[in-house]
């Protein structure tokens, strides 16, 4: 009984919180049981709310402002063993979450990298929550990416062949990926990637540094991403899109309200932006995102991707994003990128291609 009283009191505090939250961030937990219980409790509390309506900004738009976590243990694609099961029961969802968290918090002693937990890098330490869905993809109904177009299959085969035939010395452009090079962050457009629960910590079971912030002013929504300190500015005034020849890494976005849902359409991606995601989409990719606050601490995020050069049909995904504490920190990735030097040097040494200096 004390627990539910605490929960109610906690909810009251949360409901009374100003959008900017507390002055100092809450400490990452180090205890998986506590974190699992807390995540489960808050998810249940949100789901149990009835007759909740979204608050408004001072100028009358639905208030989506605040800090939201993009990391999730739910995989992008539904695992084969769950083929006909788009939803878990609540017990199954919690069990899957617990399994993912515990696996994530283990340190593989053979891992040539950190104990992620010590550095606060596990998604459960950042506030990831359970999800009733068994995959982020909700359409096609089987929860899997649609088939590749013949053109996309050719592109992928050509890229694989070219990678094998590449300039033998590994270099920044041919080896370092867009994140290692600090060109792009891990979450941009779309915002969610999907987890690989049960993966070793080294392959990022759910996502690291996955904090985002949504800012609103009259006529604009701004999404800030923690990795690479990226910004997406979304005008809401119905202005025309950029000309077709103007291409951006994060595309160019236009937003509008449909009831209490923010709808954002993004196009004008450059050709490289999605080459590492989703197996190689093109600059023709179009993204439609929907943001709806469904509780005091939950933002429902949905997206639909269309690229007729890559997939035979569009696909859609969604995830609930939990509210987290501020702030975002500067992510000056390129400014001190020792990592890319070490990674490329190490690869050159492994491949025997490093010349004596």
């Amino acid at each position, binding site marked *: 009984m004390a627990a539910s009283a605490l929960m109610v009191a906690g909810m009251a505090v949360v409901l009374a919180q100003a959008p900017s939250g507390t002055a100092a961030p809450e400490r990452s937990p180090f205890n998986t049981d506590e974190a699992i219980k807390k995540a489960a409790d808050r998810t249940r509390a949100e789901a149990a709310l009835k007759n909740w309506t979204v608050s408004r900004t*001072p100028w009358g738009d639905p208030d989506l402002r605040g800090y939201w976590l993009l990391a999730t243990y739910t995989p992008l694609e539904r695992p084969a063993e769950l083929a006909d099961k788009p939803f878990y029961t609540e017990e199954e969802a919690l069990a899957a979450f617990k399994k993912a968290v515990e696996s994530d918090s283990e340190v593989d002693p053979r891992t040539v990298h950190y104990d992620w937990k010590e550095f606060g890098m596990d998604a459960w330490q950042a506030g990831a929550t359970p999800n009733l869905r068994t995959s982020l993809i909700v359409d096609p109904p089987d929860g899997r990416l649609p088939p590749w177009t013949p053109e996309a299959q050719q592109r992928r085969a050509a*890229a694989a062949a070219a990678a094998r035939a590449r300039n033998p010395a590994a270099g920044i452009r041919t080896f370092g990926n867009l994140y290692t090079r600090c060109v792009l962050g891990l979450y941009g457009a779309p915002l969610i990637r999907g987890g690989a629960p049960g993966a070793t910590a080294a392959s990022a079971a759910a996502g690291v540094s996955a904090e985002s912030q949504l800012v609103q002013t*009259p006529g604009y929504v*701004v999404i800030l991403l923690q990795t690479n300190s990226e*910004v997406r500015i979304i*005008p809401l005034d119905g202005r025309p899109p950029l000309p077709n020849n103007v291409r951006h890494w994060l595309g160019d976005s236009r937003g509008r309200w449909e009831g209490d849902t923010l709808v954002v359409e993004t196009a004008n991606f450059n050709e490289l932006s999605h080459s590492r995601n989703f197996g190689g989409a093109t600059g023709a990719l179009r993204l439609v995102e929907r943001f709806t606050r469904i509780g005091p601490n939950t933002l429902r995020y949905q997206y639909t991707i269309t690229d007729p050069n890559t997939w035979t049909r569009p696909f859609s995904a969604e995830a609930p994003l939990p509210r987290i504490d501020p702030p975002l920190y500067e992510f000056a990735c390129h*400014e001190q990128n020792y990592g890319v030097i070490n990674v490329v040097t190490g690869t050159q040494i492994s491949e025997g291609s490093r*010349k004596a200096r």
Partner: protein
Amino acid sequence: MHIRRKALMAAAAVVAVAVLWFAATVPGQGQAGGLTRTEDGRPNLNGIWQSVTTANWDIEAHHAEAGPHPEIMGAWGAQPGGMGIVEGGTIPYKPEALERKKENFKNRMVVKVTNDPSRFDYGDPELQCYRPGVPRANYMPFPFQIFQNRDQILIVYEYKGSMRHIYIDPQMEAPVDSWMGWSNGKWEGDTLVVDVRGFNGHTWFDRAGNYATDAAHIVERWTLRGPDHLMYEATIEDPNVYTRPWKISFPIYRRLEPNVQLMEFNCVPFVEEMMYAPLGLYHPPDRSTR
């Protein structure tokens, strides 16, 4: 009497039109004291702004000069003249600090990248697509956009998408050093006063080698003067470098083109060859891959 009433009515009509025009340009917000204001009564700084000075080349007064590699860059790369933005004209360097500034200028295009902590001894950070810091971000030749809420003001600079949060309520001390510093702001009447600390000591003020250390303390004052002009001043202190505090000031102009927006300026791909080829780590991508 008759004429005066007509004049008064004409004047009232002009005012009414002006009020309607302001209301139309900024939906849902009021006007008082000649400025558009936000719902909480503050001057409305929202919008896209840009300064028009040559301060990014040199914040002190300077004449036009050939730029780097004139044999390739010609007039494209030349430095234009400018009257500077330093009040009083010169920066009050301590003598040893002025020597360091001259060293900076000599080495401003030296690129020496290593996986070693001494890598910031050389070169203008802007050349390598590093964050410009404050106040330099405000006078780069790129626009920036201000997003103003009651509790927090966000500024996004087109250059590299650099951003800074100005925390109004709540505030906290800088938990860590950064390129853009940590900004706490408050309103003094109609002026936004921003206290910036927590610099990492790697930023320069311009391409001329003017610099500060991680002890830098900047206090900015942002004041709207009419709907399309922001008057900016900043007081700069750094006991490691200067003999006393000093000030810069310049106007910032609203970008008025219809549908103007920030473009992306992600300069990292533009500098990778310059930075990493000397280490044998850069090879142009194979033409047949993406």
